[in-house]
């Protein structure tokens, strides 16, 4: 699974040198998390399999700054062991995104992707209409799924959290080039699920897009990122 490979190559090492997937520091020294927290890395440390003693400490610093070690520990305890590597990857992704952009965090990535999809679907609709006006025979039959009108684009229409796929490709999460916003549009029909009675994220999305510099597609007034120290 790509997420497991990603996790093993970028964050976990040898479990802090202690061997075994669930061992603590043992004779190999503390894991990255315990090193950062300056505490004894016990056998069965929940962080040890996911934060090696080298790069793991810096990754954990970001996680601790945003979420807090205690909260992450509780989160991981409620996740099946086989899913914890993926959970750690996504938690690290969100933590780093939040430090990089304290206002929007990883939600800016979601906004950018949502806008790209909206723009593409608008282009598809336009070209479909153009194709129809040529009054020529339709192209060779395609599988129905390709000619079907695109589903309405909205976070609210995405599969429910209880029906998420079993696997995700997490390899693009840490690629900032995948976040680029190629087009800017004044209209944004997407809606984001909000906690009941929560803030107006749709309005938030419009404001966010309005602030992006049309030349660079970068935020018009970037704020200094948090430091992890």
């Amino acid at each position, binding site marked *: 699974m790509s997420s497991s490979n990603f996790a093993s190559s970028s964050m976990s090492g040898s479990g802090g040198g202690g061997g075994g997937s669930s061992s603590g520091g043992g004779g190999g020294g503390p894991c990255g998390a315990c090193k950062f927290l300056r505490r004894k890395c016990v056998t069965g440390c929940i962080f040890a399999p996911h934060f090696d003693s080298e790069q793991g400490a810096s990754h954990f610093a970001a996680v601790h700054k*945003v*979420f*807090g070690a*205690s*909260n992450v520990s509780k*989160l991981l305890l409620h*996740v099946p062991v086989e*899913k914890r590597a*993926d*959970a750690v*990857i*996504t*938690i690290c*992704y*969100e933590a780093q995104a*939040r430090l990089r952009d304290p*206002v*929007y*965090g*990883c*939600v800016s*990535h*979601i906004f950018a*992707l*949502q806008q790209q*999809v909206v723009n*593409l*679907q608008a*282009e*598809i609709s336009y*070209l479909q209409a*153009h*194709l129809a006006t*040529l009054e*020529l025979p*339709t*192209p060779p039959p*395609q599988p129905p799924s*390709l000619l079907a009108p*695109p589903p309405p684009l909205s976070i609210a229409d*995405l*599969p429910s*959290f209880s029906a998420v796929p079993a696997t*995700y*490709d*997490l390899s693009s999460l840490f690629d900032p080039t*995948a976040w680029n916003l190629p087009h800017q549009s004044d209209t944004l029909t997407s809606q*984001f*699920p*909000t*906690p*009941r*009675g*929560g*803030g107006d*994220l749709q309005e*938030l999305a419009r*404001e966010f897009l309005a602030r992006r510099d049309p030349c660079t597609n970068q935020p018009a007034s970037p*704020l200094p990122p*948090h430091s992890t120290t």
Partner: protein
Amino acid sequence: MNSSRCAACKHLRRRCPSDCIFAPYFPSNNPRRFAYVHKIFGASNVGKILQDLPVSYRGEAANTLCYEAYCRIKDPVYGCAGIVDQLNEQLKIAEYQLATIKAAITTALQPSYLLDQSLPML
């Protein structure tokens, strides 16, 4: 004790000062909003994030923190990354559709194709 405590101070069972960092963004009529962010990020971390931002950005930050927390509660493994992946999939499908339609238009505009269509049946 302040009779109009914000949701954060109510949740934390403390007095709500007049300059409470949470009060503008976590009103008492929506306790779930703060409950989400407190569960995932912790009140202290949320307070620090908001404190380090200019006032004009704090509302948006609070909203995105709520959204992230909501996503993480609903999907403890993937959180917002699950949404990102779904959008990437939608993007791939849309790009494929676009390429297909462009190819169809290109084919339809070929002179030989147009000529074939215009010749009467003999």
